[in-house]
Each structure stands twice: as C-alpha cells, then as structure tokens.
C-alpha cells in the first residue's frame, strides 16, 4: 500500500487509522505539510493528511473562544477573528519563509507543533491557549479532552500533552482555542548598537518593568547592518504611550530608545516571528535554543568560537535562533555540549534529511524519561503507526 489518505471528516479519519493499525502500516501524519521538513525523516509510503477537514466549528466572540477542524488554514482563523477584532494570543510563526513551502499552515499543524511567536513571553505559548481537542489516537479511537471553557481540571490534561507531540500520539480532529481582543495599539522602542550581553540586560530590564512588554528581541550584526534591540508594548492607546515613555526612561542607561514607526514595527515583529533573516542561504541549518535569558549570550559566544554562526534572540533572550553550516552534524555536538546542564533545550529545526537521520533533532532524553515517553507513546499508539520515530528514534 502507498499513497495519501485524505479523510473528509473525523469518522473517515478514524476508519483510515483503524485500517492502518490493523495492517500495522506506519503513517506520515500531516496537515498541509508546511512543517514536513521538521523531525527525523522516515521512508514511510503512506500518509494521512487532515487537509480536507476544514472549517470553523465554533466561534463565540464574547466568550473568547474559537474551534476549528484541523485542516483549516491559519489565515482563515485569523480573518475570522479579525472580523471581531480578536486574535490568537500566541502569534504563531509561519514556517514557509524558512522551509520555502507553498502550502499555508493549518491550525492542526500549529497545535501539533506548539508553534508560538514573540508574544509568547506575555500571552503564553500555543499550548497555553489550546483549551480543547478531539483527536484520533493510534487505535483509531476518537478521544476528547478539555473543552470550550478556560478553567478545566476535569481528568488528565491530554490537550497539553498532544500540543507539541508532532502527531506522534494522535491526529487532531478538532482544536479549540482561547482568543484575546486585538490590542487597540502597538508601539515598539528600539535601542541601537548594543552587544549581545548588554542588549539582553536591556531586555531583562524591560521585562522586569511593570509596563506590560509583549515582545522583546535583539537583532545583532549579521542579521542587521547595525545591532537593533527592540521591545513592543500593546494595549489601549493612552497606556501604550505612557508605557513607552516610562520604558524609554528606564532604558536610559542603555542609550536613547527611539520609537519605531508603526509600519516598521509591524514588519520587524513578523520577521522576528518567522525567523526570516535566517531563511537564506537555504542550505544552512537552523537551530532553536530555549534557555534562561541570562545564559543566552554566553552560549552563543561559546558556540561562535567553534562554528560559523548567524543568530538573533527572541523572548527577551530566552529563545535563540541560530543558523550554522549544515555539513557533517550541523554543529550538533558543539551545540548540545554547550547546552548541557543549563536546564534548557535545543532543536535542530532545519537541516538536510541525511543530517536529520543521523543526529538527534529534539533534545536527547535521559534514559528514565525516554522509558516514560515510550510508555506514553504505547498508551496512545500501541502499533506505533503515527509519525513513528519523528521525534525520537524508536518512539
């Protein structure tokens, strides 16, 4: 058997997976495939895609909740929310600039990858906004967890477990998100010419202030012609104006903080979100390091002494985007050694398949955690047919 299973609805999806489970036929699980270059490659012949399962299933603006079938394009969600002046809080990134795909990301794929953007520091990640799911597990059972209300501790939270599981435990058949009102206004302040360590100290000052910073990034030389350190404040117009004024004073020791023009600000945050500066050259490998901000510039400097890198920082320094040469292990040994003992983790997001098949993509698990992860995989997908091996070999 080979080909694509393209179920029309949840029932059809369940039948497809039951059939594959009975045949012990591994499946590549995908939405539109915009992130298909992420993870360990496999040679499976069959795939199941949720692309045809589209549509908004629930939208109650006054309850701040939206639900959709997994194949719904992200743009449709965004447009629907925009009619009521609302948004997904977590500002999901679009992987197309760095993977060069044509297909629009789907909302199911966003949830499967726990894809978040700059506003994560203030409004939480995708996993924090995802409040309900229906999914089909590896046995073909339709399972629900969570729901449409924000506070819910009824039973084990399968919602968060599946958000960021990359389709290895189940395939979403519906996802329900908490949404937020769009801020009335957004302004960004910029400092210029700072080195990495000083820039992150400035971002730390901003994030430790009471002025509700919604995004904080540093773009060093290499992605910019001169280093640019930026923070964003969102809210009602008077609050934003006040916050920017106070924050500029607070950042005084780091230089003069200029207000970016609105359009420049909007563009720059979407570039930060999509890691656009690292897209080219397309042959380079891209890493994503998640760690405590105070460790970030030291680690980057350490790695930079061995590897040829380009990088920038989001989440106030807590997220480092790093491009390296993709030859051999794409810097894997150097980067993993540097991250050891820091209580953070590194993901090799983009690399050629031959590299991805021989190095760890996600942070390697200590043996006891690997055992538990394997048991959890078995609890959802006993025949190991769903994206088997995508995150970890043998899981």
């Amino acid at each position, binding site marked *: 058997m080979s080909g694509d299973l393209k179920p029309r609805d949840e029932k059809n999806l369940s039948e497809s997976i039951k059939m594959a489970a009975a045949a012990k036929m591994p499946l590549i699980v995908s939405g539109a495939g915009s992130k298909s270059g992420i993870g360990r490659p496999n040679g499976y012949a069959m795939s199941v895609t949720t692309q045809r399962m589209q549509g908004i299933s629930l939208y109650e603006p006054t309850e701040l909740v939206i639900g959709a079938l997994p194949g719904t394009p992200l743009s449709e969600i965004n447009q629907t929310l925009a009619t009521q002046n609302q948004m997904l809080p977590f500002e999901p990134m679009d992987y197309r600039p760095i993977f060069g795909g044509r297909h629009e990301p789907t909302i199911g794929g966003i949830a499967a990858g726990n894809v978040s953007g700059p506003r994560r520091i203030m409004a939480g*990640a995708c996993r924090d906004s995802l409040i309900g799911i229906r999914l089909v597990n590896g046995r073909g059972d339709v399972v629900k967890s969570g729901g449409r209300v924000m506070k819910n501790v009824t039973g084990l939270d399968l919602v968060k477990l599946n958000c960021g599981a990359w389709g290895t435990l189940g395939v979403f058949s519906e996802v329900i998100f908490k949404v937020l009102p769009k801020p009335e206004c957004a302004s960004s302040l910029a400092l210029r010419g700072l080195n990495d360590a000083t820039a992150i100290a400035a971002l730390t000052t901003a994030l430790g202030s009471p002025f509700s910073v919604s995004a904080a990034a540093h773009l060093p030389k290499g992605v910019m012609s001169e280093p640019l350190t930026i923070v964003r404040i969102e809210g009602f117009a008077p609050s934003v104006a006040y916050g920017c004024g106070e924050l500029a004073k607070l950042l005084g020791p780091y230089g003069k903080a200029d207000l970016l023009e609105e359009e420049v600000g909007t563009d720059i945050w979407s570039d930060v979100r999509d890691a656009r500066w690292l897209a080219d050259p397309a042959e380079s490998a891209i890493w994503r390091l998640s760690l405590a901000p105070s460790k970030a510039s030291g680690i980057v400097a350490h790695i930079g002494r061995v590897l040829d890198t380009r990088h920038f920082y989001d989440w106030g320094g807590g997220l480092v985007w790093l491009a390296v040469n993709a030859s051999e292990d794409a810097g894997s040994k150097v980067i993993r050694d540097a991250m050891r003992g820091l209580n*953070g983790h590194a993901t090799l997001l983009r690399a050629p398949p031959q590299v991805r098949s021989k190095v760890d993509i996600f*942070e390697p698990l200590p043996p006891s955690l690997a055992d538990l992860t394997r048991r959890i995989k078995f609890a959802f997908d006993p025949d190991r047919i769903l994206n088997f091996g995508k995150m970890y070999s043998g899981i």
Partner: protein
Amino acid sequence: MFSEPDKEILARRSAIVKHLTSLVSSDGLITDRDGCRAYETDALAAYRKMPLAVVLPTSTDEVSAVLKFCHDTGVKVVPRGAGTSLAGGAIPTEDAVVLGLSRMSRVLEINYDDRFIRVEAGVTNLSITSAVSDRGFFYAPDPSSQLACTIGGNIANNSGGAHCLKYGVTTNNILGVRLVLIDGTILDLGGNSLDSGGLDLLGVVVGSEGQLGIVTEATVRILRSAEAARPVLFGFPSSDGAGNTVAEIIAAGIIPVAIEYMDKAAIEICEAFSKAGYPLDAEALLIIEVEGSKAEMDAMLDRIISIARANGVQTVRESKSAIETAAIWKGRKSAFGATGRVADYLCMDGTVPTGKLAYVLSQIGEIVKRYGLRVANVFHAGDGNMHPLILYNANDPAEQSKAEAAGNDILKLCVEVGGCLTGEHGVGIEKRDLMRCQFSEIDLSQQLRLRAAFDSKWLLNTDKVFPFDCRNQT
C-alpha cells in the same frame, strides 16, 4: 465513596511501619492514632479515614525511597500538601500511607533576571509571592486558600484564583518540576526555559491530582507587579444586568485582571464577615479589578463604568485606598470561610461558557429550591468558573444527601451547557462518580492507559478521580 481496604496490607502494618522508620527520620513518621488524626481528612471534612501511617520526608531522595518501598511491597500512597482540597483529593484510605510534603518548604533559588523562583513543593502559595514582593515581583495564581495551600497542591489541582483571567492558572505559570514516580524514579520535567524539549509531560502532570507521581520541587515564573491595582464594586438590581455587563466588557476588548461575581446571599454573608462595604441592597455584585498607572486605570474604568451604567448598575464604588482594596479582597477571599460561619456548605466548582452564566444561575436557584435548600453564589465570572455554595446542616444525614444530590444536578447542568465538572478544585473523590457525565468510555480508557504509563499498579491516590468500575478495561 471508598474501596474496601486491602486486608493483606492491614495485616502487614507493623512490618510496613518498621521499614518506613529506616527511610525517614524519626520525627518524619507518624503512626499513633492521635497523630494520624490530623491527616484523616481535608477541606471536604464530611469524609474521613484513618491512614496506615503518615510520612513527612525532608528531601526528594527520602520521597523516592518511600515510594520505591511502597511500590515494591504494594502499599498505596496518598500525597498531601496542606490538605485544603475541597474535593477530598488528600483524604487517605486505611490501607494507604500519607506522604505529606509539609516539611519540604524551602525556597531554593530566586532569579530575577530570568524571572523564576525554584521552591520545594511544601512552600505555600502566598510565601512564593512574599519571597519576591520586595523587588516588586509576584507569583500569579492566587487561590483563595493561598495562605495555607502549597505549590505542590496547586500543581496537583491546576489551581486558579481571582486573577487568572489575565494571568492564567497554575499550568500557565510553571516552568519545571522535579517529579518522583511511584517506583522511585526521579525525573526533571521542563526547566528554566519557556517551552519543553520533548513531549509536554509538565502539561499532563499539572492538574493530575497526585495520580502520576509526587512533585517535590517546582520552578515557577515570577512577574513584575503592575504599578497599582484598583478594585471597583458594582451593585446591580438583577443578575441579568451583572451577567450582561461581563459579556459586554469582554466584547469591548477589555480584559480586566479580575471579574468576580456574588449573589445576594453571598453579599450578605461576606459583608457581615469583612465589613468591606459591599452594597447590601444589590441582587448581584461584581468586583472588577483593573491595574496599571493611574491614568490607565482611569481610562479603563471609564469604559467599564459606562457599560455597567447601560446595564442598569445601581452602585459604583471605587477603592480609594490600599486598606479599602484589602478589605474588598478579604471579603471575597474569605467567602468560603465566612459561609462556614452561618451553615455547613458544599462548594461546587463547575465551569460554564460565560454566555450561559445567567441561565445557569437561574437553574441553580431552581435545583436547590427543589431540594428545599439554600445557595450562595460567589465565583469567577470572567472565565465562567462557578462556585455555588449549597448550604445545609451536616448533622442531618438526610440533608447531607439532599445537598450532594443538588450538587450533582448542578454539575451535570454545567456539563450539559458545554462546561465541565471542575475548574480548579479537582475531581478528587467528590466528583469521581460523575466523570461519565463528561467523558465517554473511550475518553476514560485513554486517560487510564496514560495513567498506567506512570503507575501501572494503581498505588497513587488510588480512590480518586476515576470511577471504580472503569478501571479494569484498559
């Protein structure tokens, strides 16, 4: 409510106790009946069971040794923080060892630059904020029991509080935990960073009610406090006016820090206790808190007040001082305790879609009336998390069962309108047998298989969360 105790374990009690003495220090083991009595129940005090023994470890290694021993010898374990569960989550059974975290209450690390604090699980919720407040930081989730409840218990129940409308609940504010599995394995989940490297196991451990393992340490996010905060009281002549005000505030794009609701019965009870100046002539009261600079708060309140006026608000009273603010919140946060002074009560915790609040409130009134009982409603209106307090006399067994039946009807109603059985108190034993109202057999089987990946012998908090008759079919 409880399964039959395992006679074989009861018969081995002295050998079990003897071995436990070798695993923890002598003052960390309680075996006499008087000593154990303090651990018989929690805040669901209608039920109580004498445990086999109580251990109070002082380190993760001790927790691991106790769990490994219990695992190897088939002894059940009931984890316990401060014992403030309203759902019976910490009530032991006669064949179980209570493992209390009260002696693990150290702050281990404060890091303002990276905005986290690392603490042992027995630290109280409020003391986390106290540890960082001198630098203007706070830990966001603020359950009403925050003076007593521990971060370990908050993690077990994914606790919320009045201010989670803006800042989220426990799961949104935890970065990492040290978790001990029933076989003694020690795992670090998450860390100091904002997302997880593999599967989000932290996400499934939070809210798992001690079913998956015992958390001994937690790394939590701390946030910088706003410049100031100001609660405002809005008294309405009808519950509809209050309900519509909540919906219209949110529709207008305003997310206050908190929107709390009280009905007339709750207003009277809380005002008698706290003298906070709640309007006694109102049928419904909203406490809405905004924060920021003075100008920001003024601007946001202007918008909120005009919405409330359009919905017929009678009284609008802004807090004018820190003392008034404290009194307003004291009244709200003492609601359960103040109610306990006038009657025994069962506290429900269902969440409903906010659009259904007015309907559900009127139905709650009908249900309780049908059983000949009274109710006071005090809850988090912004997120639909309702806390009807069903008033009854605990010395009257007939009234007790009526109150429980009314509670069950209310929770079923919450699920019917699209909500859930429990928003922040947990399932415990109290709502265990209602789980099928919300979940199908398939849903429950999936949760049970996941549970088995952590505790295949069913030793952790055994009698809680899952109905007894669904446990053998995984």
